[in-house]
Each structure stands twice: as structure tokens, then as C-alpha cells.
């Protein structure tokens, strides 16, 4: 089995609201797909359908080799789910929570106990193992939740916004625990609103908005799509702007992008260090002292903004796209119009 999760044309309607409008996904075995999208994009609906909790109105999917509609029980036997809200029994202890799942999975009383102990150690919950889960911090609850979804050692794992609401340390810990599962060969589909999280954990990213996959690719492919790395030079005087523009035009093929208001000129970094040193030498030769000389690496914020027309988590990303201004990310400008992209884009 080379594809662990494949979905075709998933649609789901709530009343007159089309929550999913034809979602296609494919996750190769052993890889991590990050499903990235703003609130209400349809991430949770997608996960609940793929985990058999919800029936789609249309579309079909195969998960861990089993057809979702025809063999839901086999699907359930091969997946782990960590939902958007930690699903732990607050009045049971951490250990009892894991043992209950183990018993329900027919590991037997002794098997369930052994597996619980193992997971408590792995997820750093030994000290809290015999305290009721209601006394746990948000991060501990999430870890227990993740452990609970791994009791059966499922080959496919679904994580719905696994770190939303956690502090930085807990988030980093959880990331490491997810990576450990991936190293063990587990296929992961994780949803997130955090661009950084998708960048950190995912092999491929599917950007979804309003129930549609509007882009997918590796994090690098998505960044390149928005313009990749650019060299940005800012100057203090308007008179220097023309000089710098002419100089940079000589260094790379194509027109430099000029931002008059911020007196910034930028060009794609087509030749890496070569472009940088040529530009630096050229500017020195002309006697121009730039205020700022920097490489701007487009982040997933740019991707997100360009594709969905919505602000990412960095205010700077919005700043760069004020209407009527040259777009520092140049080539992506035609994609910045909100919600004009309806068809899935091959990257």
C-alpha cells in the first residue's frame, strides 16, 4: 500500500452552508500531510469524515487500505484520532484513561496495563499517571490525548489542530512526539492554522479554504510559488532609488520590483550568493550606502495570504500587500486577489 489516505471529491453541506465543496487529498504511506486553513475552512469536517465519525454527502475515500463507506470498522482498527478538543475522561487518571482504551481494544487487562505504562513513559506523564486528568495542564492533556490515540499502534494518525492553545514549550514537545511517530513509520494527517507548524512537520501541505483545496505542494514549492527568496535593498533618499534600480537590473534578468513609498527595490535571488555579491559590489562601486540590504525569504504567511486573501499570523505580511503598492513578492501579485482561485492549482 503506497497511499495511506486518498480522498476524492468529499462534499458536506450543513443547511445551506457548503462546508466541504469537493476535497481531494492523497497522502503517501509514511509521510505527513499538513492541512492548512483558516478557521471554518473545513479542516475538522474533513478529519471527522476520514475517521468515520461523519458521513460525507458525496465523495469517497480509502484510508489505510480500506474503503471508508464499505469497511468503516477496518478503517477504525487502523487509525488513531486526536480531535480538536482533548478527548480525555477528566475524572479518570491518566493511567485509567489509557487502560480503558486498551481494554476496549481487547488488549486484555494485563496487555492494557502494560501498554498504558509504556505510553505514560513515552509521553512524559509518569509523575502524573495516577492523578485525575482534570488536574492536568493543557499540554499534559494534549499529550495524554495523543497517547490515547496511539494505544492500538495505528499505522495512520489524524491530528486535528494538535497544538492550538498550547504555550511554546508544550508545542515544541508535542512536535517532537509527533516526529517520533513519523520516524516509526506512521502516516500522519495533521490540520493546523499555524503556518509554522505545517512548515515544521509536514512533507506536503494542502491549503484549504471554504471547503476547497486551493493549493498543495511541499512547503518549499509553495514558497517558491509566491516568489521564493528575494534580495531587498532600501535606501534613505529618493534620488538613490533610481540608481539602485538600474544597478540591480544589471545583476539579474528581469525587472526589479520597486516600492516607492518605502524606497525599496527587490529582485529574485536567481543565483544565490552570486546575486548578493554582484549586487553588493555594484552598489559599492556606485557609492550608494543602502539603509537596508537583506534577503527576504517568503514564508508560508505569504503563501497563505496570496492564496486565501486572508492575513496570516505575521502583520508584516499584510503590510507588504497594501493595494496600489508594488508587491515585493512580484510574481505572486496576480494571485493576491481574494478567492479568485477556484480550481486546484498544480504546483
Amino acid at each position, binding site marked *: 500500500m503506497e497511499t495511506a489516505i486518498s480522498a476524492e471529491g468529499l462534499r458536506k453541506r450543513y443547511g445551506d452552508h457548503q462546508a466541504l465543496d469537493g476535497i481531494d487529498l492523497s497522502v503517501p504511506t509514511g509521510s505527513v500531510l499538513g492541512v492548512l486553513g483558516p478557521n471554518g475552512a473545513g479542516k475538522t469536517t474533513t478529519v*471527522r469524515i476520514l*475517521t*468515520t*465519525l*461523519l*458521513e460525507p454527502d458525496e465523495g469517497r475515500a480509502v484510508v489505510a487500505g480500506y474503503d471508508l463507506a464499505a469497511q468503516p*470498522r*477496518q478503517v*477504525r*482498527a487502523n*487509525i488513531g*484520532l486526536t*480531535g*480538536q*478538543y*482533548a*478527548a*480525555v*475522561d477528566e*475524572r*479518570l487518571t491518566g493511567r*485509567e484513561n489509557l487502560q*480503558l*482504551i486498551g*481494554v*476496549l*481494544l*481487547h488488549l486484555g487487562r494485563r496487555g492494557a496495563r502494560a501498554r498504558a505504562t509504556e505510553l505514560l513513559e513515552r509521553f512524559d506523564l509518569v509523575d502524573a499517571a495516577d492523578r*485525575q486528568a482534570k488536574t492536568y495542564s493543557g499540554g499534559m492533556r494534549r499529550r495524554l490525548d495523543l497517547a*490515547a*490515540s496511539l494505544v*492500538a499502534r495505528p499505522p495512520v494518525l489524524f491530528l486535528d489542530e494538535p497544538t492550538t492553545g498550547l504555550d511554546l514549550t508544550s508545542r515544541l514537545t508535542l512536535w517532537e512526539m509527533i516526529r517520533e511517530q513519523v520516524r516509526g513509520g506512521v502516516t500522519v494527517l495533521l490540520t493546523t492554522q499555524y503556518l509554522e507548524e505545517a512548515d515544521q512537520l509536514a512533507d506536503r501541505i494542502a491549503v484549504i479554504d471554504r471547503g476547497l483545496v486551493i493549493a498543495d505542494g511541499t512547503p518549499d514549492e509553495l514558497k517558491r510559488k509566491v516568489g521564493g527568496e528575494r534580495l531587498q535593498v532600501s535606501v534613505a533618499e529618493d534620488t538613490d532609488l533610481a540608481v539602485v534600480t538600474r544597478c540591480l537590473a544589471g545583476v539579474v534578468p528581469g525587472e526589479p520590483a520597486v516600492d516607492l513609498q518605502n524606497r525599496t527595490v527587490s529582485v529574485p535571488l536567481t543565483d544565490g550568493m552570486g546575486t548578493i555579491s554582484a549586487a553588493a559590489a555594484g552598489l559599492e562601486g556606485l557609492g550608494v550606502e543602502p539603509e537596508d540590504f537583506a534577503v527576504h525569504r517568503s514564508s508560508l504567511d505569504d503563501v497563505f495570504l496570496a492564496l486565501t486573501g486572508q492575513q496570516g499570523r505575521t502583520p508584516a505580511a499584510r503590510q507588504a500587500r497594501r493595494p496600489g503598492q508594488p508587491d515585493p513578492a512580484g510574481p505572486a501579485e496576480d494571485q493576491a486577489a481574494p478567492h479568485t482561485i477556484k480550481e486546484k492549482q498544480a504546483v
Partner: protein
Amino acid sequence: MTEALSDSFALVGRQMRHIRRMPEQLLGITVMPVALVVVFGYLFGSAMQVPGEGGYKEYIMAGIFAQVMLANITTTAVGVVGDLNNGLVDRFRALPISRSSVLVGRTVADAVLVAWTCAVMAGVGYLIGWRAHNGVLRTLAGFGLLLLMGFAMSWLGALIGLTLRNAEAVSALAGVVMMPLAFLSNAFVPLDGLPGWLRTIAEWNPVSAVVSASRDLFGNERGTSGGAFPAEHPIPTALVVLVVLIAVTVPLAGRAYQKAAAQR
């Protein structure tokens, strides 16, 4: 099937742990019934006139037992709503276990708890002078019938909870359902003194049948019956009503559960 049973059993264990962790609830299901027995048996008992030699103490016990069984409507309804509003339902539904086991686990656990309540009440009843006169088997049969009622009320409560899915609405509706069922019956007062039409309603109220049936099985006086079929044949009536009620509410609650859980 055996798998569904063992899954349900594990989930019953979960509810039992909950009760142990919540002393206030354990206190509730122990102290309340004791108070009921004392208030009805002792305080009202001296003022009420009922037929037979045992007096009101003997007459009332089956009535209080039935009242406690009726309260299972609220217990289960509120519990089911709580389960539904917790991500745990998704966790259980994503496991390769029988999907009915979550509901069965809850109703069975509630039946176990109400059995405990019954035992406490019977003990206190004994202390204030209540006696069963028909031997062990019939006495046990009486309790069995009452517990069957408790189980049926749990499923009715589950259906109400899963349909309304809102704790306040559930408590309010459960109260509205329970009041007439309990008070328009022979649970607390003999029907002799009631005006004709009210008496007819009370005679046909299934709660009356269960109460009369348990009184018969316990060998407690049940007073004159007015000739209506359920009043003349309380044991078969009670059995049929309860079995039919369970047969209807179980699949309906199952369907409501699938719908409610998917729509969260």
C-alpha cells in the same frame, strides 16, 4: 455480541469510577432515598389511612421504589447530554468497538446505581418496619421488576437526552414527564378516594401497574382495584409495558445517538 457486552462492561466500570470520585453524588443516591423512606414511612405514615394490616409503611415502599426508578429518566438523560458535549464520544466512536456500547454502558451503569439505591432503601425500610411476606423468590422478583422499570426509564431518558441535547431543557422536560407519572398513580395514595375520571387515568398509568405488581410480589396490601384490566392483572401488564417500552426506546435511542454524535 459478546464483544459488545465486554465493551459495555468496560464502560460501566468507567461510570463506577466516576461515582467513587464524586462523593457528593454517592451521597445523593444514598441519602435521598433514605430521607424519602423516613419522610413517607414515618411522618406521613401516621396520618394516612390505608387498607390492610401493614399500614402505610408497607403500602408506601413499593411506591417509593417506583418513584426512584422514574428518576432514572433524568439521571440518564443528563448523563447522556454530558457525554455528548465531551470530545470523548468522538474518541469512542473512532475505536473499532460496537457503537451501541457507549449507550449500553451508560444505561447499565445507571441501573447498577439504582440497584444500590434500592438496597439502601430496603434496609432502611426494614428498620422502620417494612416487611415482605412472600418468601425470597417473590421478593427478588419484585425487585427485578422494579429494576426492569429503572432500566426502561434509563432508555427513555437516553432518548429524551439525545433528542434535546441540552442539559437544562432535558431536566425541565424530564420533570414534566415524571410528575404526572408518579402522582397520577397509586404510588403514594390508594386510588379509592379519587374522583372517577382521575381514578381511571391512574388505573391505566403503567406506573400503577408496576407498583401494584411489586406490592403483590412483596405480599404488601395493594388496596381494592377498580376493575380496569391493568389494575386486575398488574404483573403481566407491567411486564408487557416495560418490555415494549424497552423494545421501542432502545433502537430509537440508538438512532438518535448516531445522529447526535455525528452532528456535534
